[in-house]
């Protein structure tokens, strides 16, 4: 079999498929009103939701700064607010970078390479944010509920003990490490489930083009 033998079959196939699927100019105009559903649009949508979510949370903690008198909660709110602002800045920066990215570069190889870089960048950003903020929040919340418990406060007052004993510090460090490990793997698993197969498939295409 020669490859050129397929040309007549291909011609018949393409003639038929084009004849069957041809649409009017008005239909194409209508399609332009739709929404793009490509991977970059999806990432931008996810980023947009994340920015909105972190912004709303920041406002809540900003409000708490004016309402709360408890010193621990004040420190907690300040720390969380700083984390939120850093997160928003990094997400907005990444969103802008993605908005400037044109997925249709001069050829397939550079386009796929650009998409893979963007996708991996997003996964990395999401992962870093999760691994940085979530364990901190979890441990801080635990600390707050643990030390602000009425019985704990009474005990501290009676025994004149310091806020942090060695056991407390050990417990907090252990809790932080456990939270970090669990969140590291759960975030990795989640991102892999969402984009892992797609990234692997695009990398496969890229490797093929680089061969």
């Amino acid at each position, binding site marked *: 079999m020669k490859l050129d033998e397929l040309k007549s079959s291909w011609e018949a196939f*393409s003639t*038929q498929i084009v004849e069957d699927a041809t*649409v009017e100019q008005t239909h*194409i105009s209508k*399609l332009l009103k739709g929404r793009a559903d490509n991977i970059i649009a*999806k990432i931008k949508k996810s980023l947009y939701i994340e920015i909105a979510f972190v912004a709303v949370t920041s406002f809540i903690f900003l409000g708490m700064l004016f309402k709360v008198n408890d010193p621990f909660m004040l420190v907690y709110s300040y720390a969380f607010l700083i984390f939120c602002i850093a997160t928003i800045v990094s997400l907005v920066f990444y969103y802008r970078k993605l908005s400037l990215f044109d997925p249709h570069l001069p050829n*397939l190889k550079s*386009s796929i390479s650009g998409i893979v870089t963007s996708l991996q960048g997003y996964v990395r950003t999401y992962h870093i944010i999760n691994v940085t903020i979530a364990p901190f929040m979890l441990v801080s919340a635990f600390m707050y509920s643990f030390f602000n418990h009425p019985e704990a406060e009474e005990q501290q007052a009676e025994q004149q003990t310091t806020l942090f004993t060695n056991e407390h510090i050990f417990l907090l460090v252990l809790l932080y490490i456990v939270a970090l490990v669990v969140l590291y793997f759960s975030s990795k698993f989640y991102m892999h489930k969402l984009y892992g197969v797609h990234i692997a498939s*695009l990398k496969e295409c890229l490797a093929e083009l680089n061969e």
Partner: protein
Amino acid sequence: MSTYLKNITPKALAIVNNIELERKFTEIVTVHQGIIHKVCGIYCKNDECRKDLFQEIVMQLWRSYPSFRGDSKITTWMYRVALNTAISSFRKQVKKPQEESITGSIYQIPVVSNRYKQEQEEEIQFMYKAIEHLSKIEKAIIMLYLEEHSYEEIAKITGITKTNVGVKINRIKGKLQKILKPVYDEIR
């Protein structure tokens, strides 16, 4: 007339320009829509997927259109954007068929009967199924090859060297030969 033009605000002018751009774009896409349909046909197994991909490609062409400066042929640009969209599209991944399933009927092949002789129709179906066994990149290359594009054009669209195009076409030929030979031998 000149007074009328002077009264047009920049915003109104931008709207008029956009309408004109859209009209020109839809005209081009209507004339060359065959390119998009062929790409959809080769990358999708069913009508729903083909419709979705067609819309996505048209959208991507529209977004990319303002940056098209005419330094390549309009058809080359369309092939590039269409193939890029099809390859990088974030749709549910479908497993590649097993090599033995060439005679099975798992595909909704976009070929309607009664138009060709029985023999040619079978050839089209086997060709379509054989192409299904290729990777996304191989599909793009074989499509461009069967569409009579030169090695240079294929290299320009894909971003690989001309020599590499030749190597890949030979490899695809080997693959297709392996899949189709028993079928062709049976027919002839």
